[in-house]
C-alpha cells in the first residue's frame, strides 16, 4: 500500500487500493539492473560530452586546413608553381577544340602561364577558313590551343610529323 504523506478521504483510499492492486512492481533482478544502469549514467554522459567536443574540434581543424591550404596555394602561385586555371586564365577556345586535343600531348598544360594563348578572332569562322593569323587552316585551329609555331611546342609538332611519316 502506498504510504501517503497526506491524509486521504475514504473515496480516495478505495481508489488507492485499486491502484495498489493493479500496480506493476519491479522484480529484484530488474531493480538490480536499473541500479547498475543508473551507475553508468554519469560516466556515459561524461563520455558523450567529451565526444561532443570532437565535433567542433574536427570542424575547426577542417577550417584551419582549408585556410592553410589556400594560403599555401596562393603562395605557390606567386612563386610561379603550376596552378589550376582560374576564371581569368581559362582559355576561350571552343569546347570542341578543347576536346580535340590529347591532354598527354598537350605540352602547353605544363606552361607556367597561359599568356601565349591567342585570343579568338572576332569571327570564329575565320579560323576554319584559314584566315586566322595563327597559321591558318585546320592547323591554325589547333594552334589556338598550342600557341603560335615556335613558341616551345615544336616537340609536339615534330612528333606529329614523325607519326605522319610513319603512317604515310
Amino acid at each position, binding site marked *: 500500500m502506498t504510504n501517503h504523506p497526506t491524509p486521504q478521504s475514504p473515496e480516495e483510499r478505495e481508489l488507492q487500493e485499486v491502484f495498489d492492486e493493479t500496480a*506493476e512492481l519491479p522484480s529484484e533482478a530488474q531493480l538490480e539492473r536499473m541500479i547498475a*544502469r*543508473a551507475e553508468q549514467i554519469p560516466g556515459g*554522459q561524461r563520455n558523450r560530452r567529451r565526444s561532443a567536443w570532437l565535433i567542433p574540434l574536427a570542424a575547426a581543424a577542417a577550417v584551419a586546413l582549408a585556410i592553410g591550404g589556400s594560403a599555401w596555394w596562393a603562395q605557390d602561385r606567386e612563386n610561379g608553381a603550376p596552378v589550376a586555371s582560374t576564371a581569368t586564365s581559362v582559355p576561350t577556345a571552343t569546347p570542341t577544340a578543347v576536346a580535340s586535343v590529347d591532354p598527354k600531348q598537350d605540352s602547353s598544360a605544363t606552361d607556367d602561364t597561359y599568356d601565349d594563348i591567342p585570343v579568338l578572332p572576332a569571327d570564329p569562322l575565320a579560323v576554319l577558313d584559314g584566315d586566322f593569323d595563327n597559321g591558318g587552316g585546320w592547323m591554325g585551329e589547333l594552334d589556338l590551343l598550342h600557341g603560335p609555331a615556335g613558341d616551345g611546342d615544336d616537340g609536339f609538332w615534330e612528333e606529329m610529323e614523325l607519326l605522319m611519316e610513319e603512317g604515310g
Partner: protein
Amino acid sequence: MNMTAPRTVAASTPSPAVDLAVQRERKLVEAARAGDGKAFAALVRPHLPLLYRLAARACGDASLAEDAVQEALDLTYQRLDRYEPGTSMRAFLASMTVRRAKTLARAERRRKVREDASATPQQADTPAELMGAADLKRRVVEALAELPEKRREAAMLRLDGGLSHAEIAEALGSTERSVRVMVHLALKDLRGKLSDMFGGDRPSQPEVASTATRSAT
C-alpha cells in the same frame, strides 16, 4: 518544471534528522554531478520501485517500464543542476518518469500501428482472460487515458507515486491549490469510470490481489 524554489517536504520545521538527510543528499548530488556513478545510483535507488510503477502505469505496458525509467534517469542526470537538495527528489524523479514514459508509450503505439498494419490479424483474448487480472489493469489504464492530460498526471502522481499535493504541484509546475482541484476532479472521474469495482460489484479480494504482480525478468 519549477524546481527553483526550495521547499522542505519532510516537515515544516526541519529537525536535525532532516538536516542530516538534506546534507547527505547534497553530498550525493554534488558527487553525482562530478561524475560519481555510485553516488547517482544511491540518490535514485530508494525511488526506483516507485518510478517503475509510475512508468508501467503511464506506458500501459510493463515491458516498457524499465526503459522508461532508464530514460528518465538519463534525463534526470542531465538536469541534476536544477535540483535543489532538500526539495523533493521523489517529485523531481516522478515528473521526469511520467513524461518519459508518456513519450515512450506514444512512440510504441506508433510502432505497433505500423506493425499491425502489415501483420496478420491475431486471435482476440478469450472472455476468461478478459475477466482476469490483466483486464483489471487495462481498465485502470483506459480510465486514466480518458482523463485530460494534467488530471491524468496528477492522478498517477497521487495514486501511484504517493506524492503529496505540494509535491505534485512541484512536479507539474503548478500551484498546490490547482493540484488539489485537479486531483479531486481526476479521482471523481476515475471513480465514475471504475464504479463497478467498488462496493458489491468489486471483484473478490484474492482475485484482485493476484493482479499486483511482480514482473518476472
